[in-house]
């Protein structure tokens, strides 16, 4: 693999924009400005994940998430997990996103940003107001067992293979 000639410039650009985003979040926002303030760091992070996926990994996303957690005085890990998932979603949709013009790209990114926010919300809620116990996860286990039972039973009933793909 050969390194592109403008590699150093790219690094500088990535670091510069990320620093700028972090600085922007440090401004003393308040009132409705705070309410509508975009998550600069997340947007820059996702942008570079889309365009330079080999340079920004999950580690960077995680660290920036920890920084966001500190900024909001939230539980450590809340934004970190959400940012990592956001990065993964962009990687997953990367080839698709790169084909679109900016307006469609923004539209496609809306669900990604929404899911990042919802994940942070969910984790924060679980950490701050934990439900009665992890017993809420037991149905997952029992449902899996039930699935196994049904599948096994049907297989027995129909002979040795229900191979859909045949």
């Amino acid at each position, binding site marked *: 693999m050969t390194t592109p000639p403008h590699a150093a410039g790219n690094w500088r650009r990535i670091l510069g924009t990320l620093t700028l985003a972090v*600085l922007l979040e*440090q*401004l*003393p*926002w*308040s*009132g409705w400005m*705070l309410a509508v*303030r975009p998550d600069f760091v997340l947007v820059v992070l996702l942008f570079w994940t889309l365009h330079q996926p080999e340079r920004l*990994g*999950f*580690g960077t*996303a*995680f660290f920036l*998430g*920890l*920084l966001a957690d*500190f*900024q*909001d*005085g*939230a*539980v*450590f*890990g*809340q934004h*970190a*997990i959400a940012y*990592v*998932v956001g990065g*993964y979603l962009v*990687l*997953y949709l990367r080839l698709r996103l790169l084909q679109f013009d900016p307006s469609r790209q923004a539209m496609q990114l809306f669900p990604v940003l929404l899911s990042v926010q919802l994940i942070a*919300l969910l*984790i*924060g*809620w*679980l*950490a*701050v*107001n934990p439900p009665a116990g992890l017993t809420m996860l037991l149905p997952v286990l029992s449902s899996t067992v039930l699935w196994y039972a049904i599948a096994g039973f049907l297989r027995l009933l129909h002979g040795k293979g229900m191979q859909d793909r045949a």
Partner: protein
Amino acid sequence: MPTPGQLMFARRLGPTARLLIWLLIGVSCVVIDVRFQALEGLRSGFSLLLQPVRQVLRAPGDVATELSGFFTRHRQLQKERDALLAERARLAVGVNTAKELTRENAELRALLQLQARPGQRTVRAALLYRGHDWFAQRITLDQGATAGLRSGLPVVDARGLVGQVHRVYPGSSEVTLVSSPEQLTPVFVERTGQRGLAAGSGQGRLVLRYMPAQTDIRPGDRLLTSGIDRVYPAGIPVARVNRVSRSQANPYLRVECLPMAGLDRSRAVLVVVAEPQVTKP
């Protein structure tokens, strides 16, 4: 099956595997932070790193405020001066009464051989940053452990109680606002002396909890800290009752209050540093 020339494993893990690893790290972070409070060092590190940045970035706003203040019209200043003179006259009367009361109080305390209240010191602090958490409303102040702050101290502004110090870093501290959800403040109703518990309800409001339906309380009543929790000194204004409603289903009144302090306006606050009480045998 891998052909002889092919690598058995990819040199780099696939995105899904890496995602799972990071998710695991994230979840353990949450658990370590919530269950064991073991990440305060990391928080302090971030704080040391970002505090100077926040100080610097606050400067443009300060300059803008200074400039707009400079161009305030003469007329308005005159008006304000008149209002202040009137208020000073009114306050002077109050101060005299207070002096009387202080002397009388001291005498009575001496009579009762009560210990005088331990000295209270206040630390001036300025708003540095406003957090954007969904589960608690917090602000960051520019004073921290070096100024003698510790977690749990009350924070007030000119109009009333702002909140309670939540986390302390070397040069800054986080304050949970009184209107933050689940933030409890023991209060009493100024007019009747009825004690109660004010809880933040988010959106800059408070509710007075567990008020029996026959309680004498009406809109406009002021709530002051009762001081029975030994956290807040007694008599700091907390909130003003905004709406009282009864419901058939609930044995308690629903009392909505608005905080007195300028939670989203104040830029300068005082932290009341009470010296720890020493009880002598």
